[in-house]
């Protein structure tokens, strides 16, 4: 598979088939629910099945293309990779097809191919080695509108962090298409906290943070938010979040940034591995 085709394939895969861990989690949620909440989850699962078998996008909001690239500093084809990312977006927009979502913020003009100034959004992270690993996260606008940054006073401590996350996610109600997946980034600075929140979304559901203290916080946040009763689609029920994932960075003594990245139930992800010889494999 060449680079552009491999990346376009990853976008197609992410848009049309939910990862197995997300489907499993939705099925478990369905078993917990009854009444209107259960109807919502049944509709969701039926839709997921149909999208997968026909290879068409799960949701009409196919998102803004976002790539998280970990590139080995010895990877020999970096120049080609830089050019391949927007080209793959154009290709996938035509072939899947994806909804052309990018619009100019001043004129409202839509270029029609999902690219534009700074878009696709690419987060580059150099690592040792000669391989490249790319995560694709097409994220819809409804849930992204619920992503926020809270700059807390450090004095409020972990309790303040819990309060901020729970209050925010519950206040969002049905807007981000719950049951959602919530990525929380604690510490760093304003931009890093939000980025950590997004990176936390890349972790498969069911996988906890390796540090027990962080894992315990994830579990507690899930329990607290689900006790709210917001439920699937904000129509009431036991499952408001499928999971909460937490990441952290060291912080400035005067700042306690908390980035909250909210992702809808259609938690679309795909991953791409590129070997130095140019072999491309798509997973998830």
């Amino acid at each position, binding site marked *: 598979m060449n680079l552009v085709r491999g990346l376009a394939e990853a976008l197609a895969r992410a848009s049309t088939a939910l990862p197995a861990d997300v489907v499993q989690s939705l099925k478990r949620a369905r078993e917990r629910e009854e009444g*209107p909440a259960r*109807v*919502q989850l049944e*509709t*969701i699962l*039926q*839709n997921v099945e*149909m*999208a997968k078998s*026909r290879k*068409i*996008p*799960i*949701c*009409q*909001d*196919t998102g803004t293309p976002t790539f998280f690239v970990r590139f080995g500093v010895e990877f020999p084809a970096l120049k080609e990779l830089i050019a391949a990312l927007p080209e793959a977006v154009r290709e996938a927009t035509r072939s899947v*097809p*994806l*909804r*052309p*979502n990018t*619009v100019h913020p001043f004129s*409202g*003009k*839509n270029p*029609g191919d999902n690219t534009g100034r700074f878009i696709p959004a690419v987060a580059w992270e150099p690592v040792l080695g000669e391989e490249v690993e790319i995560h694709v996260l097409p994220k*819809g*606008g*409804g849930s992204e*509108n619920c992503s926020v940054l809270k700059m807390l006073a450090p004095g409020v401590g972990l*309790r303040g962090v*819990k*309060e901020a996350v*729970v*209050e925010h996610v*519950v206040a969002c*109600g*049905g*807007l981000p*298409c719950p049951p959602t997946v919530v990525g929380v980034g604690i510490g760093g600075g304003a931009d890093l906290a939000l980025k950590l929140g997004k990176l936390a979304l890349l972790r498969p559901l069911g996988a906890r943070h390796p540090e027990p203290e962080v894992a315990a916080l994830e579990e507690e946040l899930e329990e*607290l938010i689900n*006790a*709210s*009763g*917001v*439920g699937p*689609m*904000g*129509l*009431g029920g036991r499952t408001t979040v499928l999971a909460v994932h937490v990441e952290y960075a060291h912080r400035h003594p005067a700042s306690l940034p908390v980035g909250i990245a909210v992702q*809808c*139930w*259609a938690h679309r992800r795909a991953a791409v591995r590129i070997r130095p010889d140019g072999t491309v494999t798509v997973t998830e």
Partner: protein
Amino acid sequence: MERVLTTPVSEKEVRALRAGEVFYLSGLLVTARDEAHKRILERGSPIPLEGLAVFHCGPVVQKKGQEWGVVAAGPTTSARMELFEADLLRGFRPRVLVGKGGMGEKTLQALAEVGAVYTHFTGGAGVLAAQAITRVLAVHWLEELGVPEAVWVFEVERFGPLVVAMDSHGRSLYKDLAAQVEKNMEGIRARIRGK
């Protein structure tokens, strides 16, 4: 028995619907998002909306020859249209709104006043929605607004399930639930403070 309403929907049919009930829609479903709402209020609707259903949706479409096909067409977040909806309801008299996430007090009042309902379709279930769209009858303002924001006129057959989330008698499932959630939050806040 599943209830099916066919456009044009009458005031009597709409007034009979109560919050929490489920129905399916056949007939004409017209998409309108933020830009389309704004434009309809400024210069009139490209299609008479009376008795029809307005769908908060920006679809994924594909042109095959001369015909448009709909690939995925679930609802978008309705709250953004709160700015315009009451005026649109009063000025153009659609009977059914289809969206997700619910709308506010101004819309709830206008629904009661003109006799219309706001219905919820499962967010993200774009494929299921597209399945019920039998034909694209027209598209307006495509050139100016682009695919998601254009006004698409769909012919639909048993489109749903649509949950009546806000009825024409002033009841809103979202308002009811918000009160329950607020009550639950008291306990949750105490738990956070206690630990």
